[in-house]
């Protein structure tokens, strides 16, 4: 008799895309968290809406490990298309949970694993008449069975169902009923719990469970972004969608209903970054979010923002490249193409969040960096962080924190006779002062251009002017981790980036 594995195992759900499994599987992961045991789930999904295989892998780890461990201790095999390889992937001595409504030949099983057959379809057909309900509740029935098999507290799952359907109360009772159907069947037919067990722990504390994209979107709200322009692309779309959702909640005027934000779904990535640059030039905090192919398309505009010194924030949620690559799989594929985006000599500021907490933190700070340095700032996450719920430290905000709007010349300063040259290096740190359009009737206007220019923003093809400009841009860069730019160094260390 082997020792039971307590709070340290991997369970994988093999499902069909579009069968409603995602919310049931998330319910499962959250119920373990509520018992104080860390989990790290992963969606492994195809570029497809209905029909293709999809997996949800949950690593239960009391020690809090987030990476994919490899191997599967319990496979919930709900997809006939992938049955053979799903069964093969189970560790010797591991478990297979399957829908036993129709019997399968012995050749479909392995000798060295434990097989748990639950007639999910049979129970569903017996209890429900609506075909969609039969499908959806089949998922909840296996969650019920798992709770018995793994000793997950049913009360926690019921509580989660009540929270999830709060406001749609009529759905609560049938979901809880389905849960109990599964639980009862497992209790009656198998020795529960099995050798994989969840036991209450204290590894979760006040941590939160959230996807990186949603965290970044909230960071944009807190960081004062008012304009978002984007073009749908996996795995970044949910960032823009979450931003709009959060803005509807936090940025609609309660009295007038007017919005303090604008989200534009652009015609392509070129237009998205163009709008962000136009808004940044005009003094709004603006961002776009995209993935590899979008970064490729934005190259020319990124060069313009760099050379004309316009703040912009770009989220690159990376996926497998090159070309269309693997749109629904993770990779850190764009590091170099972002670092030196554009033709000609450029060098960009890149931020690398390690989890949703940092997605929030870096998103909110990125606008400060972009406006302080007057340049595009990239936040590079990846599909793994962006589209999976991760357990991370809760978000924090200091209410005394003021946005750093960078070097600006105001109407009154112009009126008092301040000398203004858009690309004059007044402070010697390479970053010049700017004005917003419309600041003063007769002073402070300038002409922004992608061509080379002199310190007063006038078109110039003179060698010394070009050199002067390029050298100043280089001075304005935080060059390496020791950060030559004093401001950047101070702020970087304040946020404890090590």
């Amino acid at each position, binding site marked *: 008799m082997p020792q039971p594995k307590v709070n340290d195992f991997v369970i994988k759900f093999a499902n069909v895309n579009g069968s409603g499994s995602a919310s049931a599987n998330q319910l499962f992961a959250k119920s373990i*968290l509520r018992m104080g045991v860390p989990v790290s789930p992963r969606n492994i999904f195809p570029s497809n809406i209905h029909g293709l295989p999809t997996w949800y892998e949950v690593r239960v780890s009391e020690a809090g490990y987030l990476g994919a461990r490899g191997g599967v201790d319990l496979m919930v095999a709900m997809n006939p298309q992938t049955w053979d390889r799903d069964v093969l992937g189970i560790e010797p001595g591991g478990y297979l949970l399957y829908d036993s409504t129709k019997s399968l030949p012995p050749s479909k099983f392995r000798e060295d694993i434990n097989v748990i057959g639950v007639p999910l379809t049979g129970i569903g057909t017996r209890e429900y008449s609506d075909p969609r309900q039969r499908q959806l509740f089949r998922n909840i029935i296996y969650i019920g069975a798992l709770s018995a098999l793994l000793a997950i507290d049913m009360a926690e799952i019921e509580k989660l169902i009540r929270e999830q359907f709060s406001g749609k109360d009529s759905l609560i009772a049938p979901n809880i009923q389905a849960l109990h159907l599964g639980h009862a069947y497992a209790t009656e037919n198998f020795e529960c719990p099995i050798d994989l067990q969840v036991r209450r722990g204290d590894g979760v504390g006040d*941590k939160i*469970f959230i996807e990186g994209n949603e965290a970044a979107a*909230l960071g944009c*709200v*807190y960081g*004062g972004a*008012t*304009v978002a*322009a984007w073009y749908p692309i996996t795995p970044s779309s949910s960032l823009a969608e979450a931003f709009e959702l959060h803005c509807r909640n936090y*940025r609609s005027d309660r009295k007038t*209903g*007017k*919005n*303090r934000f*604008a989200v*534009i779904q*652009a*015609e392509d990535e*070129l*237009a998205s970054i*163009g*709008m962000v*640059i*136009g*808004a*940044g*030039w*005009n*003094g*709004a905090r*603006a961002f776009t979010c995209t993935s590899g192919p979008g970064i490729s398309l934005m190259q020319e*505009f990124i060069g*313009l923002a760099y050379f004309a010194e316009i703040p912009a924030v770009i989220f690159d949620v990376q996926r497998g490249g090159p070309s269309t690559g693997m749109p629904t799989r993770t990779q850190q594929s764009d590091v170099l193409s972002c670092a030196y985006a554009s033709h000609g000599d450029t060098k960009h500021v890149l931020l690398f969040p390690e989890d949703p907490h940092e997605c929030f933190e870096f998103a909110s700070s990125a606008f400060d960096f972009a406006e302080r340095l007057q340049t595009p700032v990239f936040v590079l996450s990846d599909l793994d962080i962006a589209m999976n719920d991760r357990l991370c430290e*809760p*978000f924090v*905000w200091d*209410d005394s*924190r*003021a*946005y750093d709007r960078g070097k600006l010349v105001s109407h009154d300063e112009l009126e008092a006779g301040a000398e203004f040259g858009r690309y004059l290096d007044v402070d010697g740190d390479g970053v010049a002062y700017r*004005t*917003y*359009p*419309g*600041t*003063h*009737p*007769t002073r402070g*206007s*300038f*002409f*922004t251009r*992608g061509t080379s220019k*002199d310190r007063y923003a*006038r*078109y*110039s*093809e*003179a060698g010394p002017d070009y050199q002067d400009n390029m050298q100043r841009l280089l001075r304005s860069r935080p060059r390496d981790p020791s950060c030559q730019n004093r401001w950047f160094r101070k702020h970087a260390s304040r946020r404890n980036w090590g």
Partner: protein
Amino acid sequence: MTYIAKPKLRHPRLATNKFGFTHRDYEGAVSTLCAGCGHDSISAAIIQSCFELNLPPHRIAKLSGIGCSSKTPTYFLGSSHGFNSVHGRMPSVLTGANLANRDLIYLGISGDGDSASIGLGQFAHSVRRGVNMVYVVENNGVYGLTKGQFSATSDRGSKSKKGAANLDAAVDMVMLAMELGATYVARGFSGDKSQLVPLIKGAIVHRGAAFIDCISPCIAFNNHSGSTKGFDYVREHNEAVNRLDVMLPREPITAEYEPGEVEEVAQHDGSVLRLRKLAEEYGVHDRIAAMNYLQNSKAAGEIVTGVLHVDPEADDLHDNLNTLNAPFNKLTEKELCPGSAALEKFNASRR
């Protein structure tokens, strides 16, 4: 040659407008385009329009793409912020700028290469979004800066300076703008300033996507016989359907018209577009009939000019997005950041 500033001296009796600005206050640097270029006449018309509308120059932002036409914002409105962006992408930059501050007037200057070829997509989408802007295409049917290649608005069968025939069908920017829902559409001719100035003024006072296709002959590469964008050709085939007067808010109406000849369209700022009909059967409100008329005229070889469409119930992107009346670039932490208490609540919802 890099940049030529004009001398600051001015004649003491130079006329001023209502806000005390002279014509010179709306000028820019000396043009570096070819002597006689149609684009310089358009710049002059823009200067006159802004002067006559009493616009404070800093309340205008001028944006452009790349090409001869896109160079012109340097040559007018020297006290306005300008943005010479990348080729064919002025519309997206303008859209973003407009979202950041809805209080300014956005003047987008483009050409037929910039808007009908590389930027056709951005042109189309900015128009269909109803961005509040004045979008001027300085249309000469040719790539000037790269020395005389055909552009996408060159008519099929028209000849290049060297005699080659254009084999491709022409993009008609006016028809596209009408189709895509521009709420003010006009066509002008750089050789007729008296017609062009009111067309620009009308576009400025209009709230919504205003588009002006301005035929502007290229003196260097497309002003020969065989061209359909040269001065002589356009003069011979120009059919103006109406004459526009832009009446500013509270301005006494001085012009006298025969009843029935005049259509009036009130604009959001209280200005009135008064249109005197030259072609009796042409109505500017009925988009479908107008498009039909334009197609027939084009088939007959005419270049129809004037105000071609005005939607009296125009709205713009900000209306559609239901955005705040105040410019976004003036909002502070107080209006933008939900604060730590809301964040603590949010954290609790994710446990």
